[in-house]
Structure formats: structure tokens, C-alpha cells
């Protein structure tokens, strides 16, 4: 009985992230910790912080927009993938099956947030001994050693909401390491979760809402 309850509850999780822009100082810790956690190669960054200067001197301010994958509920990348290598999981995460991806990069062109990167097969081995020995565990998969022919080289990659961490009950690396606690992570199906409450805040907005992609990353202005 309880086991059944557990599985049905698993399906009920709808992961979402809230990022409070007032708290973000633009330190790029999320970007760095993401890189360390997911062992992303050069030219691949699952998370970036877009820094913009708004206004004219002397009335200027910096606006930092951390940008992970939005894990859209109506994802354009999933729509266009010719081989169904990108798909939506029941927990709300948009996943990529790198063993199926043909590397056509159509999803990269289609993503309105620029959240996807192609793995060109580059490596940090020169700077970091042992980098090639093990790859990051996207979606909890172990792809083993990194070499010219190993998946996910030659395919498209993106932020997974650190699914491998979620599965062992941990928050995504960017949420855990944020120095100003600007990121919140949780279940939108639970009306009492912090993210549910923050999503209802009057400061809440989502990027490019007009495109109808229904992102699962919510910002607080």
C-alpha cells in the first residue's frame, strides 16, 4: 500500500525553480558549480548568468538573469526533434536521450532561451588531469570515460535540473551553492511548497511568456 502510494507520489512531482533576481548578485557561482557538478566540457554551459546594463549614465543598473534550462511545459525543442531524443518526463524535466540524438542541432536553433549546447568533443584534460576519466551523470546515466566517440560527444546537451541529485534527495547544484540564496527548488504540485507560494507572488514572471512555452523556471522581479 505504502509502496503504491510512493510511486504515485513520484509521478506527482512537478519540479520547478524560482530565481529571485533581487537576491542575485551576478557572482556566477551557479555557473561554476554547475560546471563542476555536471563536468561539462569547454563550450558547454548548462547555466549562464546573463548580465545586462540597463539605463543611461548616470542612472544605470545591472540586471543579472541566471539562465538554466527552462524545462518548458510546451518545449519547442521537443516539438522539433526528428528522432524523439528530447522528451518531457512526468516530473516536468525535459530530457535528452544522448544515445539516440543524431546531433542535427535543430533543437538548438529552436530553443528561445539558448539553453542548449552541442558537445564538440573538447576537453579540459590539458588543464585538469583526469578530466576524461569520467563524464557527468546527466539524468543519472553513467557514460563512462570521455573520448572522441563516447556519448554525449557529438550530441546536444542541456541543464537537467541535476536530476541525478534529485533522485538521491538533493537540490540542484546551482540552488545549493547560490551565495545569496536566490534560487528555490521544489514541487509545484504541492500547494504548500516554497516554490508554489513564490510562484503566486506578484513579482513572479517567466521569460518570453508570450511564446507560450510555459517555462518551469519562474523569476521574481
Amino acid at each position, binding site marked *: 500500500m505504502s509502496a503504491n502510494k510512493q510511486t504515485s507520489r513520484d509521478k506527482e512531482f512537478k519540479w520547478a525553480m524560482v530565481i529571485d533576481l533581487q537576491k542575485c548578485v551576478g557572482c556566477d557561482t551557479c555557473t561554476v558549480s554547475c560546471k563542476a557538478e555536471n563536468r561539462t566540457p569547454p*563550450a*558547454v554551459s548548462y547555466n*549562464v548568468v*546573463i*548580465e*545586462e546594463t540597463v539605463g543611461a549614465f548616470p542612472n544605470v543598473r545591472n540586471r543579472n*538573469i541566471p*539562465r538554466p534550462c527552462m524545462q518548458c511545459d510546451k518545449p*519547442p525543442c521537443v*516539438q*522539433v*526533434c*526528428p*528522432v*524523439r*531524443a528530447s522528451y518531457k518526463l512526468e516530473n516536468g524535466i525535459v530530457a535528452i536521450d544522448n*544515445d*539516440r*540524438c*543524431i*546531433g*542535427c*542541432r*535543430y533543437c*538548438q*536553433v*529552436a*530553443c*528561445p*532561451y*539558448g539553453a*542548449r*549546447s*552541442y558537445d*564538440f*568533443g*573538447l576537453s579540459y584534460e590539458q588543464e585538469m588531469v583526469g578530466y576524461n576519466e569520467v563524464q557527468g551523470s546527466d539524468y543519472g546515466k553513467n557514460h563512462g570515460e570521455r573520448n*572522441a*566517440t563516447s556519448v554525449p*560527444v*557529438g*550530441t*546536444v546537451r542541456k541543464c537537467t535540473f541535476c536530476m541525478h541529485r534529485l533522485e538521491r534527495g538533493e537540490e540542484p547544484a546551482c540552488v545549493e551553492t547560490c551565495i545569496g540564496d536566490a534560487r528555490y527548488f521544489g514541487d509545484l504540485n504541492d500547494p504548500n511548497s516554497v516554490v508554489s507560494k513564490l510562484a503566486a507572488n506578484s513579482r513572479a514572471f517567466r*521569460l*518570453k511568456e508570450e*511564446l507560450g512555452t510555459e517555462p518551469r523556471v519562474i523569476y521574481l522581479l
Partner: protein
Amino acid sequence: MKLNTSQQIVVASPTNTRWAGKIWWGSLLFVLIIGIVSLVKGYFLEGMTSTNLSNIVPWGVWVVFYIYFIGMSAGSFLLSTLIYGFGMHKFEEIGRSALLSATVSMITAITFISLDIGRPDHVLNAIIYWNVTSTMAWEIHFYILYIILLVVELYFSMRPDLVKGASRKTQLAKWYGLLTLGYRNLSQKALELDRKRLKVLGIIGIPLAIFGVHGGTGSIFAVVKSRPFLNTGIFPVVFILSALVSGTALSIAIYIIKNKVLKRSNDVSMVRALGSLLGLFLVVELGLEWYEALIGWYSLKTEELETIHVLAGGPYWWTFWVFQMGLAMVIPLLILFMPRTRKSIPWILAASISTIIGVVGVRFDMVLPILIVPVMKGLPSGNYFPTVSEWVTSFGLIAMCLLLYTLGEKILPIDQHNKEDGGI
């Protein structure tokens, strides 16, 4: 019907043609071999790092040439359907060569896009798994259907000549006999049946080429809502029009050049009619491009304005002003509308060649400017120009295309200059 044209020409002007032929084959083979070396060194050994592609500009010159050749193919094929589907026998003489160039262009297009695949070992997934919401998945299947249709149609259009050739005493008789698969029926009834088959294939082919292959390829780009400049209903139509433009220009150029090489006279009224057709397609294309730009511009949206800015005033402005607007629009239009030049065969040839070269710029501008403008303000802008390796590989494949076409002309009864039996 002349079956062994090449031999007859050798008799007509032995040294000249032989030398021209040798230079043609030799130089193309040379470019092809260099291209293959670059392909192995770049694509196979270094992968995508041999290109200047990045995560901001994920598509480059190979995609440009892919849509360039798709356009050539669809355009040539549609021209051939005027003959086989709609019975416009005025253009009879270019029917088979248009079908051959459509087939060869399609093979080249597919080769180009195969290079752009990051995981060639996963490529069969494109057939095994079919995402019905993906325009690209639909295209992959349409291309397969289309290429089968092209080959079947070309075969039936040649079959009576293959049968006749098989019983003549020429070098190619055995080969022709093999291609007929033992079929020897040349009765009126059989010819009539073949003609009907061609008509049916042509008519099935029209929607397949327009909506499936070319409109569909346009849709691959047009459905992308992250790039507002592409995301318009008119984009696939512009794509089809530019296919008609490039296909017509290609057919004219092949016809005139072939006659020049073989020292034969042109069917002047047909070339003029094709020239007017090209002029008409160009005017419609210009109109559609104007509306596309106007509506994007009028919205005053940042992405639209920036894309137009990159297109017309960015570092590669010349692809737009020199190639797209100059070579592929203003110059051919002037030639085809000025009373002095529009009736002259050399001028019509010049207009066609100018268009064929210019359309490369048209395709370049369909892919790259929209990728250079970042999807979100604050993300870096793209910067892309093909590497030497990308260029050399591309030229190699273009040489492959020309070689395949020349080979087709040599070993198949493509030529329909002598219409003694009316062709089919």
C-alpha cells in the same frame, strides 16, 4: 534519337572536344579528391571542431548548400512536370536533363546535410523513430519518397530509348540492355502506357515537390518561433519561389552550355520562353521578399530589426547586396526585361549563371543572419564564416554533383536534341 552523342562529336571535332572533356573531367576530379581529403581530415578525424560552428551559430555552410541543392532539385523537377504532367511539349528538349539534374542535386543535398549530422552512427534513428510533430522528421521521409519518384520517373522517360539503344551496335548497348531489365516492348500501346505513367508520376510529384520537399524544407526554418524573422507564413512560399528561380536558371544554363560544347544550335524560342519564365519567377520572388522584410521591419521588434541590420549592414552585407540582390535579382531581371538583351541567347545564359551563383547568397541569408542575432538580449552575438576545411569540402561536393551529372549524360540517354520520334 542520338544515343551515342559523345562519339558523334568526337567525329565532328576530334581534338577540341576531347581536350575540353579531359580538362572538365580532370579538374572536377581534382577538386573532388581534394574535397574528399579535406572531408576525411576535417569531418571524420576532427569532427565538428574542423568547422567554425559554435553553440550560437549551430548551422553553417553545409546547411546553406543543402537548401541550395534542395532548391535546385525541386525547381528542376517542377520544370520537368510542366512537360510530363501538363503536356507543355514546348519544353520537351530539357525534360530528361531537368529530371537528371533534379536527381543529382537531391543526392548532393542529402550528402551535404549528412555532413552536418554530429553522430553519423546514430543516423538510422531518423528512420526508426519518427517524431510526427517534427518538420525535419517529415522532411527526411519526404526526401526518400521524392528521390525514389525522381529515379522512377527518369527511368520511364528514358525507357523507350534504352530499349532502342540496346539493339544498336554501340559501346553502351549492353549497358542499356541491362537497364531495360529485359523489357523490349516498343509498340504504340506500350509507349502510350509509359507516357501515362509519366503523367501520373509527374502529377504525384508536384505536391510532393512543392509542399513536401521544398515548402517542407522552408517549414523547417519557418516553424522556429525562437527566430521571429523566420517565423512567418510567407517564408516557405519564398522558399518555393526561389526553388523555381534556381531550377529554371539551372535548366537554361545546362541546355545552352551543352549545345555550345556539342556545337549544336539552340531552340531559340524555347530558350526565350524559359527566359521569360525565369523573369516571372524572379519578379514574384522579389515581391514576396519585400513583404517578408516589410512586415518584419514594421513590427519594430528588436530581433526583427537586428536581423535586418545583420542582413543588410552586418559584416557579411555583401551576401545580401552583391549575391542576393545583385546577382540573383537585379542583374538577371535587367537582362530579362531589357528589349535588347532578353532575346539574346548569350545574355539569357549570363542571366541564368548570375542567378545560379547569386542564389548561394540567398540561401546563406536564409540561414545565417537569424543565427547571428542572439535569442536573448545579453547573450553573445554569433560570428560565423566557414573555415578553409568547410569550403574545400563544399567545393568537393559541388564537383561531385557536376561529375555525377556529366556521367549521367554520358551513360544514359538523357540528350533529346534530335526529336525524330517525338520523345516521350
